[in-house]
């Protein structure tokens, strides 16, 4: 009996000790079969597609990261959502990460992986660099100094870079990428995962034009703060080739497959967040602009095109004349009124960059005396034509009539009884100051609905003259002033406090919405 017990003891002891060596399969148990642990050339196209999709913003990010910020500050739209206050310049820190996080945590890590894993002279590397600039220029133009050189480095804290240095790097990257692509015109980098240009005859060439147009845009942006560099960059960009035809226009395709692939702007308008601004109404109606019924649709209750002023109180928004049913939502390309509700076209492509803008940029450059390959007037007309063509307006007679029209904006007959927003005619003026206004006004119209670029250019040039917000609830921005930037994020102050404190010193004023950015000299 003793022996049996002893044997049983040993068995137990062995069983217990045996557990020690049973951990051989622990590594495989603790490997998530649904995930990918190593990344290489096979995965880069998928990562690039992700980097393209995410900073064009999912519906949730678009609504609060752009739809309540740049979309209304550009005055393409006025805020219709009754409870939203950003149109009255209230800063909603809880919403703002939506414009930041997709760039830093979703897109940038993928681009960094591709940049590190591909040689600088490859077209894949060039595309990663171009897209890097595209998404970061939107971030820096919101905030000014931003975490840039160490973005997505995984470091515990990330230093901010002053905006001028950020811009200098943009030019460097675009120049290099354009040069690489010029010698790889037959490349199809990332194949079908280049969601923007894969259907184009020569994706590499299209990306090269895109890079140069972006470079031209950024050159004009710094034309007041650094005219010398601006001229040099603009001329180099034009010489290398910018967008000239709508067939090279850049769109981000959107899909109904997953929610995050929906067109964020379309969803935002389907959610009844926005309506045509009174400024848009004043200009488009005054010009009898063929784009009016494309950009917007008649108000549900009136059957007419109606806009509303930016910056109304809720108590004003509920008045019929300012209400949603009495004002124009976006055009039928994005939403349609069916069964008393908005049906959203989730897969409406998102506008990224167009040849029309390139022409207006060149027109302004030509006025600056830069070598843009043509005259301001010629580019102005081509810009209008390209914009019309882009929106499917093919009636050449109407376009010609439009270009020669002396009509000016009209009073929108809105709830605030606003006067006409400005008095610029379409017909190209003989005086440079009016020409600048006209170019700015037509570019503003052509940029629709890209709020981020619209707002940036309003700040940079101060043109066209638009309405002031009816009410400001931001003590830093008294009635009559214009919003200049977004304050640094609370989430960054909580997690990256010391670096944000240093970044505040890089600003020309306090960290609020009234402090102009480096390139903003108005």
């Amino acid at each position: 009996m003793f022996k049996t017990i002893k044997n049983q003891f040993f068995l137990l002891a062995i069983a217990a000790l045996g557990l020690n060596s049973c951990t051989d399969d622990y590594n495989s148990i603790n490997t998530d079969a649904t995930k990918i642990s190593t990344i290489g050339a096979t995965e880069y196209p998928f990562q690039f597609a992700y980097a393209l999709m995410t900073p064009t913003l999912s519906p949730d990010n678009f609504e609060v990261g752009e739809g309540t910020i740049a979309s209304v500050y550009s005055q393409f739209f006025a805020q219709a959502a009754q409870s939203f206050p950003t149109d009255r310049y209230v800063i909603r820190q809880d919403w703002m990460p939506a414009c930041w996080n997709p760039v830093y945590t979703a897109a940038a890590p993928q681009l960094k992986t591709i940049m590190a894993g591909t040689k600088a002279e490859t077209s894949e590397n060039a595309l990663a660099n171009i897209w890097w600039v595209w998404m970061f220029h939107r971030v820096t133009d919101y905030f000014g100094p931003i975490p840039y050189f160490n973005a997505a480095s995984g470091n515990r804290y990330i230093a901010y870079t002053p905006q001028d240095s950020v811009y200098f790097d943009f030019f460097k990257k675009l120049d290099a990428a354009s040069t690489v692509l010029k010698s790889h015109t037959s490349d199809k980098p990332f194949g079908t995962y280049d969601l923007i240009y894969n259907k184009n005859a020569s994706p590499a060439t299209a990306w090269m034009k895109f890079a140069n147009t972006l470079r031209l845009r950024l050159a004009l942006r710094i034309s007041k703060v650094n005219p010398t560099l601006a001229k040099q960059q603009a001329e180099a960009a034009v010489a290398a080739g910018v967008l000239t035809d709508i067939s090279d226009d850049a769109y981000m395709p959107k899909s109904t497959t997953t929610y995050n692939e929906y067109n964020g702007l379309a969803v935002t308008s389907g959610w009844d967040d926005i309506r045509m601004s009174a400024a848009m109404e004043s200009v488009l109606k005054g010009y009898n602009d063929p784009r009016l019924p494309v950009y917007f649709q008649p108000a549900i209750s009136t059957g007419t095109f109606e806009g509303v002023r930016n910056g109304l109180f809720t108590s004003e928004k509920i008045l019929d004349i300012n209400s949603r049913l009495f004002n124009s939502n976006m055009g039928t390309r994005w939403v349609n009124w069916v069964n008393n509700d908005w049906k959203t076209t989730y897969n409406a492509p998102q506008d990224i960059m167009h040849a029309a803008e390139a022409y207006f940029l060149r027109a302004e450059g030509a006025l600056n005396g830069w070598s843009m390959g043509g005259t301001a007037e010629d580019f102005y007309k081509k810009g209008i034509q390209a914009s019309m063509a882009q929106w499917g307006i093919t009636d050449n007679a109407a376009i010609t009539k439009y270009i020669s029209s002396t009509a000016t904006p009209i009073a929108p007959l809105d709830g605030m009884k606003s006067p006409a927003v400005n008095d610029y005619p379409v017909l190209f003026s003989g005086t440079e100051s009016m020409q600048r206004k006209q170019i700015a006004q037509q570019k503003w119209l052509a940029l629709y609905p890209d709020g981020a670029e619209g707002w940036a250019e309003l700040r940079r040039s101060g043109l066209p003259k638009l309405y002031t917000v009816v009410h400001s609830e931001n003590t830093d921005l008294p009635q009559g002033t214009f919003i200049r930037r977004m304050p640094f994020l609370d989430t960054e102050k909580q997690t990256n406090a010391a670096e944000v404190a240093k970044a505040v010193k890089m600003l020309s004023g306090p960290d609020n919405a009234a402090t102009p950015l480096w390139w903003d000299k108005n």
Partner: protein
Amino acid sequence: MKKSTKAFRSPLPEGFQPKPLRIPRFSLTTFLLYLMLTSVCLIGTAQAQPAKKVTGKVLDHKGAPVPGASVIVKQSTSGVLADKDGTFNISVPANANTLVISYIGMKTQEIVIGNKTDMGNITLAEESVGLQEVVVTALGIERSAKTLTYATQKITGEQVNEVRDANFTNTLSGKVAGLTITPSANGPGGATRIVLRGNRSIQGSNNALIVVDGVAIDNSSPAGQVRYDSGGQSGSDGASNINPDDIESINVLKGAAGAALYGSRAANGVIIITTKKGKTGKINVNFNSGVTFDKALTTPSFQNSYAQGSGGTYSTLTGGSWGPKIAGQSVTNWAGNTVSLQAYPDNVKDFFRTAVSNNNSVGITAGSEKVQSYFSYSNNFINGIVPHNSLTRNTFNSRVTFNLTDRLTADAKVTYMIQGIKNKPGVGGDGMVVANVYRMPRSVDPQTLKGYKNVSVTGVETPTFWTSPDPVYMNPYWTINNTHHDENRSRVTGLLVLRYKLTDWLNIQGRVSSDSYNDFITQKYANNTVNYARQPGGYYSEGNDFISERNLDVLLTGNNQITSDFKINYNIGGSVLNRNLRHRVNAADGLGFNNKYDLSYATTLKVEANTTKRELQSVYGTAQFSFKDYLFLDLTARNDWSSTLPSPYSYFYPSVGISAIVSEMMKLPSWVSLGKIRGSLTKVGNDADPYLLGQNYTYIRGGFGGYIASSSTKAIANLKPELTQSVEVGTEWRFFNSRLGVDFTYYKTNSKNQLLNVSAPASSGYSTLNVNAGNIQNKGFELVLSGKPVTGKNFTWNLGLNYAVNTNKVISLYEGVSQLYLGSSTSVRTATPLIKEGGSYGDLYGYKWKTLNGKYVVNTNGVPVKTDEIQKLGKTIRNSQQVSVTAFLTKTGHYPCSLTVNSAV
């Protein structure tokens, strides 16, 4: 009152001759080895000595036999147990003269043997209630309450079922000092939080471990808990699946004392449930039937002076109630009818209903000497207070105990449960039913909302609403009629235990248990439901979660009387625990035919899949040394190897406890029935979730061939186990034959090295990083007073008071991280629980009105402005201090009845 959890243990091995043992000095790491060696030594010294035979029969005060009564020869180590008839037959050495007869719950008696060989009937008197109380401790080991070195509190099955609840854990509220029960707002079947002695884990579970018949059961909510103010449906938990009628008793281990035997999950305390088993004797059938009524306890208080509108103007274009003063003026209501303006003060309250629920169960016990069985069936039909919400549950339970041989017993249990929840209401903000109800403008007649839809000539339904269609909120009657969240669960728990008595003092037990369940969750959103049916036709999803937990363990249990004063009880065990989760969701985002809720109608099919696996291997041991039955030393140790940690996967945690029965160590006045002091120190390690070690990438489906994304959480390659240290001291006194009792406990726990998912600067490329950090401290005391002011033949009055105070403090978080959002939101839309260094778990933060010198700050338009930063608003943890009083009056005799009052603050 007879306890059914009778101990069946032999204090002495037969024919054992004591021999002094040399006890080696040991560290806790060599503890297990030491235990084994000790045991082997003990076996080696076992010898027999012949003598005369003595017989007798042990009876209780009513004359019934006492099977299992212990009969030992005084001044020796000889002893036997009485058989089922209470009779015993013992060998007595020639020099012995006295027998000591004892049984738990009865007074020990000594009898002089003299020349007799038949001692006849020996009647044991009843022990004062409580002193010999047996409690079930870790791994189903029964111990006399007085020997414990830590605080426990026992609840009987009857107490659980005094007031019935679909989730029995809700009935524990107020019955245990230091226990906080937070029921779910998700209607019947929702997960209940069961927290003992405060919250110690910031991002992990704070729920006490639930153990049924010695086996931990899964009490997670696979579908997760709603953590965002946008809301949703929280998952159902595991504890709610236990049929209250099957519960024999519950013992609550408040501290981490169970951790050595149950592992890390016991760090939050353990709710040990013993279920009923079969009894020898004739067939006994027990029916239970009950009806309960539930009503909404309270609704927010609303103003009823101002109508729908804004800025003092009546308007149905806004959902707010900032309109004109209500004075019967004539207006056009939202439905287009001219009405005179009036307030509907009860339009929110009237939405809810009085919910009637039925609980029926039948339990059958029967048994022979060889086989005892218990079968039960219960049916619960429970209605929620939100219309159309209900739960149906059928539970089948079968437990059979076999006495295969004198040495071998088997215990087999299978429980099968099927549960269906219909229309589980969502909690939180965006379009959830209660949020929709609460937004009803004060001047809206609820009758106008009940026809919640318009139907077109082609049969297309569109919702009606009191204002122009909102992108998120809707008519609540549309919500309850045209959106559905249904859950079905089937669960099988099986347990097989084999016990073999190696010797009278040594048992080995092997056990296999399995707990697995399938959740099938469907969500239906009718065509035109705002926010949720985004594509034409409607939305339908099927979620399937399969959770399984399989445990294999071996446990060796022994006890030895080393000298007449010195005893040792010990356990050595090993176990392998495997846990798997398989999660699948298929969703039809858009249906080809309106409201045909089936995946085959999907216009766009979306898939979500997730599988996790983990394994935990453990070796553990406990030893209790007792001296003269009044001084006890407990030592425990455990080593775990977890698959979720980096190599070598291992962590070790020990505990030490001591208790002394003062009332037996020294002569105290006779009115002192018990005096005891106790203390313990415990360390508990804990592993983390799987798959945290390596940086990885995710494939994401999409319309253009898919994407690959890097994880936005920075992995933690050097993940360390969490560590909870606790110290506990207590004292327990009973007076006047135990009619008055007081039990006081002070404790302090520190949880360190917690796995925290902290916010990273998004600019780093990661939104969060996993770190080991933090120190959360809970300290407090518990006071349990019990009294029996009246005890008569037909009438007793019991009174209990539980008082507990817990102070929770966040001592440190992580370098560069001064706060953590519990709601996992880095932005505050309304209010959020926020963990701040120096604050406590559950502090609620949000914006307030900005004031200056006690006056509101207004903007240029005269509108009050909110504070620049979020500020502390209050606490979400209700009971940092809790008091509860229980009184029950029992009348027996011809018209038995009882009255229970339980009030908790």
